């Protein structure tokens, strides 16, 4: 079965160097695909080429069977792919409410926007509770949850999350992972890049280990997690 998102022989990089080398990757519809790997392996670069922030030098990227190479981030967003970047990406001096509304910036149907706002308020209570406060006043975990709420304003088919647990304490991290599970149960496909390989692969239906811009290993999340070589290379030190 063809994946929701498919990368075929993608080469991409910055300046004169390549980070991804003829990379093949398939993200299955309805699942959670988690990409792990050491720093510099190209995890975030994959997300940048998918969301249109970086144009691949070679190769094809297809979403629902149609090429998205060369499209602007806005056009890719409108096709149903939304990315929550690695670093805190809320607009700090805007209120929580303004931030969430910005998630529907490309949508013109006000009734639809209002309905989505209701839905995200139901799913993420912090949005309603802190709606008039500046986003910068929220804790790191709350900011991440508001970023998720903003990402869902366009009801995307594919949600891309770049290291969502980075910089969070263990309790908040488990809340964030639970929220990712809930988004997936609600029918959204998740493409996750995670530095914390054990947590990420534990969550994933499909695991991908990236090394030097190439897929080193892939398979079911638990199978990748239990692979002895991967455990030794990537999980041993962080277990």
């Amino acid at each position, binding site marked *: 079965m063809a994946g929701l998102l498919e990368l075929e022989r993608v080469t991409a990089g910055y300046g004169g160097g390549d980070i991804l080398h003829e990379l093949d990757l398939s993200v299955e519809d309805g699942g959670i695909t988690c990409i792990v790997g050491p720093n510099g392996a190209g995890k975030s670069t994959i997300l940048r080429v998918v*969301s249109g*922030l970086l144009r691949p030098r070679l190769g094809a990227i297809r979403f629902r069977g149609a090429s998205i190479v060369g499209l*602007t*981030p*806005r056009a890719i*967003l*409108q096709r149903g792919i*939304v*990315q*929550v*970047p690695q670093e805190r*990406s*809320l*607009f*700090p*001096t*805007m209120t929580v409410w*303004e931030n969430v*509304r*910005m*998630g529907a*910036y*490309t949508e013109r149907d006000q009734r639809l926007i209002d309905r989505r706002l209701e839905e995200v308020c139901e799913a993420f209570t912090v949005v309603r509770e802190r709606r008039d406060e500046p986003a910068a006043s929220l804790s790191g975990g709350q900011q991440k949850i508001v970023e998720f709420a*903003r990402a869902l304003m366009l009801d995307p088919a594919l949600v891309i999350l770049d290291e969502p647990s980075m910089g969070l304490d263990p309790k908040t991290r488990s809340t964030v992972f639970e929220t990712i599970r809930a988004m997936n149960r609600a029918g959204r496909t998740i493409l996750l890049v995670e530095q914390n390989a054990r947590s990420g692969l534990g969550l994933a239906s499909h695991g991908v280990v990236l090394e030097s811009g190439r897929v080193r290993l892939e398979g079911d999340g638990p199978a990748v997690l239990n692979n002895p070589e991967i455990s030794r290379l990537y999980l041993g030190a962080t277990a």
Partner: protein
Amino acid sequence: MRIVLEAAVLGVLTGGVYALMASGLTLIFGVMRIINVGQGALVILGAYLSFALSRSIHLDPFLTLIVTMPVMFLLGIGLQFVFIRPLKTDREALSVLITYAIALGIEGVLGFFFTTNYIELRAWYETASFAIFGFHVTWVYVFGFLLCLAILGALFVLLYRTSFGAALRATMLNRTAAQLVGVDVDRVSALAFGIGVATAAAGGVVFGVTNAFNPGSHYDLISRLLSIIVLGGLGSLRGAIIAALIMLVTTDIAAVVISPVWASFVFFIILVLVLIVRPQGLYGVRVRERI
């Protein structure tokens, strides 16, 4: 005491003009992270355009803005498209060189067409005044101040009450995140540059009716505008307004209390003291460098 009060009132009135000129500069920095050192020359260009229109078709200088603001807005979009957008790396440093080159180009063209003699924008009410608290205030300063207030008010409405304003603020706060929610940051950048240059047109007409100017007047102007946006905090519109008022009120009061020679020095002492306590300026956001 009366003379200090008079200086303070004049400082507030002229501070509004500088606030408007600096708002364009800080808006451009906020959206594109570039320092447009050509803003002073664009103000002078605006003044010359108003001068040419008022002389040729006998329009009131303030009414020339109906023509000059849209023209300067389009010029700003053109300049951004030709000179700024192609900069892909080292934008901050290169933009200083490029906008300085733009300033020199404008100065050269104006010198060619208008000579380097000082001129002034003339209006029938330029010497009319009214008395308040025992001293006289010239109407032209009040008109200029009210115009600046109106344009700054419109700018705030645009920024805080419209969808485009939200996109512009989002781009100022986090360019990548703005792209990821669908903001066309290239379009926003071009429009922001256009708006910044259009404010220079408005600033130019008020500067021109209250000061004599020539094509080289932009050097003094840009040094003042840069000081204002540094004190206010780079990228902060509120900061630019407050800092402009601080600059003009302190220099005007220092000029009458101490000496005109020391007037600018007093402001720079305030600037240094503020930057020691708040390196990011009054309303700026502190950025931590990643190591």
